[in-house]
């Protein structure tokens, strides 16, 4: 008797649960529709258009691989691909070198939560001005008659202005590092702040000096932060065009700049080729970074 009541009781509740799960799936609907319309469809379009036939003034939906061949045989475009990768790796390294110690200070050595928040907010303050102004503000800093050169000459450290400061790889790297560094600091500081101070004290108590503790405890525990930060920075830097346009004097051409130029001259098929290449690179970079650390364990 009791058995039957129990089994009768279970069946409707299991069915109810399944129904509830089905209803819950509808919560995804707006997001799925949005992503299909504005992400998946455009990407498919982009791949499709990259095989269209492009003439000087027109574009026709006749499939051809001409644009692709053109991209991979042109020294200019392969050069831009290489520049993009070089600048990306340099900026990534620079944001880690500048960002990690900052995050270490904020996340580990400042144990007052209020002060921690204040310091992180300070990192975001530059974002209160517009992106273009932040980029362009580097010009009067780095230029031939800019602040840095004037100071160096005034102090007698250099005789002539250093011209390599502006309109070079260096100025692009400096500008990008300043803009994207905070995306590295945030995730790392977050992971570091989660480390239990007792864990570090325990390592100390077991006889390890700071160097050892950093290598064996702090660094491994903060790696998820580094990976998340690297994904943020990589995705943004790989798609960049404004910083290099403003600070390189058109000397540094990234894939992003090429897309802008091609779209400007209505070369849709070619712009689509570059877009596909860029998307594939980003996907590969994110996939590679996710292999470094199992983020599922950290969530």
């Amino acid at each position, binding site marked *: 008797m009791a058995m039957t009541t129990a089994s009768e009781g279970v069946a409707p509740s299991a069915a109810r649960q399944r129904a509830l799960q089905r209803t819950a799936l509808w919560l995804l609907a707006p997001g799925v529709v949005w992503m299909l319309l504005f992400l998946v469809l455009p990407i498919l379009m982009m791949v499709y258009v990259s095989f269209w036939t492009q003439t000087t003034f027109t574009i026709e939906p006749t499939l051809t691989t001409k644009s692709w061949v053109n991209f991979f045989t042109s020294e200019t475009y392969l050069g831009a691909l290489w520049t993009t990768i070089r600048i990306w790796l340099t900026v990534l390294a620079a944001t880690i070198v500048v960002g990690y110690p900052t995050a270490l200070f904020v996340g580990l050595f400042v144990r007052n939560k209020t002060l921690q928040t204040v310091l992180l907010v300070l990192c975001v303050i530059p974002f209160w001005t517009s992106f273009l102004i932040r980029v362009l503000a580097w010009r009067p800093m780095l230029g031939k008659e800019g602040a840095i050169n004037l100071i160096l000459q005034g102090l007698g450290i250099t005789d002539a202005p250093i011209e390599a400061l502006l309109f070079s790889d260096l100025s692009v790297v400096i500008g990008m590092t300043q803009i994207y560094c905070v995306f590295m600091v945030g995730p790392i500081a977050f992971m570091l702040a989660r480390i*239990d101070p*007792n*864990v570090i*004290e*325990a*390592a*100390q*108590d*077991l*006889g*390890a*000096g700071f160097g*050892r*503790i950093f290598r*064996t*405890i702090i660094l*491994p*525990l903060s790696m998820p932060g580094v990976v998340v930060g690297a994904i943020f920075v990589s995705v943004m830097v790989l798609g960049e065009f404004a910083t290099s346009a403003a600070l390189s004097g058109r000397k540094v051409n990234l894939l992003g700049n090429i897309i802008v130029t091609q779209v400007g001259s209505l070369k849709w098929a070619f712009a689509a080729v570059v877009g596909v290449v860029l998307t594939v690179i980003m996907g590969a970079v994110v996939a590679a970074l996710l292999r470094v650390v199992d983020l599922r364990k950290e969530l």
Partner: protein
Amino acid sequence: MTTVLQLTNVSKSYGPLKALDGVNLAIPGDSYVSLLGPSGSGKTILLRVIAGFEEPDQGTVTFDGRRIDGTPAHRRGIGFVFQNFALFPHLSVTKNISFGLENREGPPLDPRTVRDKVAAVIDLVGLKGLEDRGVTQISGGQRQRVALARTLVTEPRLVLLDEPFGALDANLRMRMRTELRAIRERLGVTFLHVTGSETEALAMGDTVIVLDRGRIGQMDEPDTVYNRPASPAVAKFLNCYNLFEGSLASDAFVSPAGRFPLSASATRRPGGPAYAVRYDRIEVRPAPAETAPDEVAIEGTFVTSEYTGASVLSFFSLADGRVVEVEDHLSHRAPPTYAPQQRYGLVWKRDAALVFA
């Protein structure tokens, strides 16, 4: 017995708060010392000063014959077991335990030696079979063992345990008590065990230290602490004394609850004036109680009682609202039955009371 750790006049303040106030302490080698104190008595700070996580404002700490205040924690060679275990979350059980051997300063140990030592300590604390588990995949009791093993493998002469059973359930706590004492005896090192539980302190310590507002209230063998607490504050932490404040006359203690005649031979301890009677030294009689010449009696109203298995704890309220607790051990008598809101006489022998002048 040799002294392994000596604290001389150690003080530490946080702003206006004196966390440690002139602590003098000598911890004997090869013994189990428990440090009892209520929360806020400075017991964790004291441990952290010894371990080197905090530096004292004044005073000296001498360990193994050399002065160690000012020495960084990783060069002190004192083990510390944290209340929350503080295991390295990204490392396996074995890697947690071998951490100290592999990462301490100085020439690295031969990997074979490390392996042997780790295997021996895993055997000692009973973690066989869990070597490759992550420390997030084992139970609380097992984590406690890893924390202990990780410290013991570095062979410290002194191990500090900060409320080591705080995160364990009652059942496990009882089992770990005996086990911890057995492990210590096998290794012949000193354990300094901080706890807020008086039963744990009395059960585990060869010596019990009572910490009272940043000072050492008493340091004695467990039964001395229990039967002859050095001050009213110590008596209060032990959670088994009824304390009365008042003033001391020539032949009696005068408290708001009444006048308690003193026996001629009563020793007067410092730290008062206060008068203390243990819960289980009070006898309950119907009011008005008849008393012998060597007895003291007051009257109280029965409020309620609490059954603890081996004994019954009964609460009586006095005229001024103060509550007196009486403990009846059930091995002596049948469970007492008192009528609620009924008045009873509470009687004890004059000699059973402790008087603090």
